[in-house]
């Protein structure tokens, strides 16, 4: 199996690569990994990972700057049904649009839009809700039979850093939520594609467990 981590100028992808490599080695899986921005490599790969840090409009621009990439992703994921993972802004790009800085369209694979996390109120210790939502948080698993959350307990925590959250009425696409002031979708997905708001590559053993689930998932 061949895994392509898509490099479109959004930050350092080494962490994502390192975390996948570790999971592949430990679990003795037969995968090769390529970090690439080449359309031919992406279309040859069996599975696709789209990371993303920074702002939604910047990431969208990075994708658009690679001629044909967005069309190719649509084709590979929606029509050819290749397994796909979006991480952080890579996940955000999977929905209709985001209001970060200016309204920017995503791929529209899932329903909803990203808006700023609400600040009002105080947390359980009387502290303000700081934005970004930064640090380790639990999941509330909504779709307990999804293979992607196998063996993951609600006591485990994942590393989040983001300021926008998915607002959507489409509940069946939400696999897990987290809570920071209000409910925030943490794992979303449909058919052969999932997206995570947290960073599995920075979430210690829990993150490794998630990556392993995704690698062995056969949608």
């Amino acid at each position, binding site marked *: 199996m061949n895994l392509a981590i898509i490099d479109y100028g959004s*930050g*350092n992808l*080494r*962490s994502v690569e*390192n*975390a996948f490599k*570790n999971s592949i080695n430990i679990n003795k899986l037969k995968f090769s990994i390529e970090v690439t921005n080449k359309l031919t490599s992406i279309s040859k790969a069996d599975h696709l990972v789209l990371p993303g*840090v*920074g*702002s939604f409009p*910047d990431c969208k621009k990075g994708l658009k700057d690679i001629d044909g990439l967005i069309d190719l992703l649509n084709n590979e994921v929606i029509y050819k049904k290749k397994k796909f993972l979006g991480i952080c802004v890579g996940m955000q790009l999977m929905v209709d649009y985001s209001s970060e800085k200016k309204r920017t369209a995503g791929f529209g694979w899932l329903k909803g839009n990203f808006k700023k996390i609400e*600040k009002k109120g105080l*947390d*359980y*210790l*009387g*502290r*303000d809700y*700081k*934005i*970004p*939502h*930064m*640090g*380790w*948080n*639990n999941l509330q698993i909504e779709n307990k039979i999804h293979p992607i959350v196998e063996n993951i307990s609600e*006591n*485990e*925590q994942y*590393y*989040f*850093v*983001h300021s926008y959250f998915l607002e959507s009425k489409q509940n069946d696409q939400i696999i897990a939520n987290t*809570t*920071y002031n209000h409910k925030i979708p943490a794992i979303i997905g449909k058919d052969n594609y999932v997206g995570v708001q947290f*960073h599995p*590559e*920075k*979430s*210690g*053993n829990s*993150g*490794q467990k998630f990556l392993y689930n995704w690698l062995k998932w056969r949608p």
Partner: protein
Amino acid sequence: MLSTRVIACLDVQNGRTVKGTNFINLRDAGDPVEQAKQYSTIGADEICFLDISATYEKRRAMFNVISKTAETCFVPLTVGGGVKDLNDFRDLLNSGADKVSINSSAVYNPKLIKQSSDKFGNQCVVLAIDAVENIKMPSGYEVTTHGGRKKTNIDSLKWAKQGVKNGAGEILLTSMNTDGTKKGYNLKLTKLISQNVSVPVIASGGAGSPKDMVDVVLKAGASAVLAASIFHYDIHTIYSVKKEMSENGIIVRDCEN
């Protein structure tokens, strides 16, 4: 619920850690890569490397340390010390740092905060403020650079607010008055900054016991606590700190005993 983070900080000089640690199972106790891995294994929520090398040539060793650490250490990694411009920023991020903390360079080149957050995103820009008590300042605290040796005549609160406005995603706040005393964090300073900025504030400087961590969270509203020496000499561990925090009602991420 979001955990309050416990961050272990390592001082690195010429690619080696300066202060000792007592991890018995390390092959090389001065190797920051092994120490970072050990800290992440026992439950540190983030690792912070502070590079105190004097020259650029010596600083290059840091890139190697970061890239090796990032291969095996799957928790967020912050690197600071000597970051001067966007090139330094890029080099550190490309080596595997998740966040870069800037201090003196932000004071001498205030545009760096905006430039770096525009370029790399505010999630990776940490504004480090070394504050010292000064009654002549409106907030009572002056920003210092060079480890507290140089005064700047800049008010710490104003500087924090401006930094956030320019795109800093987090503030690493060190009290130069309590740093190294092991008598507890500066609660007044931490509360002042934390209540007046919208981003998370990491308390630093003065931790001597797990109780100090509890106090700075409960009494001053810190989003995260950072400590260096308290973890290095085996008196207190990440586990004992988190246990004390948890017993006082602060939610922390589980870690190994």
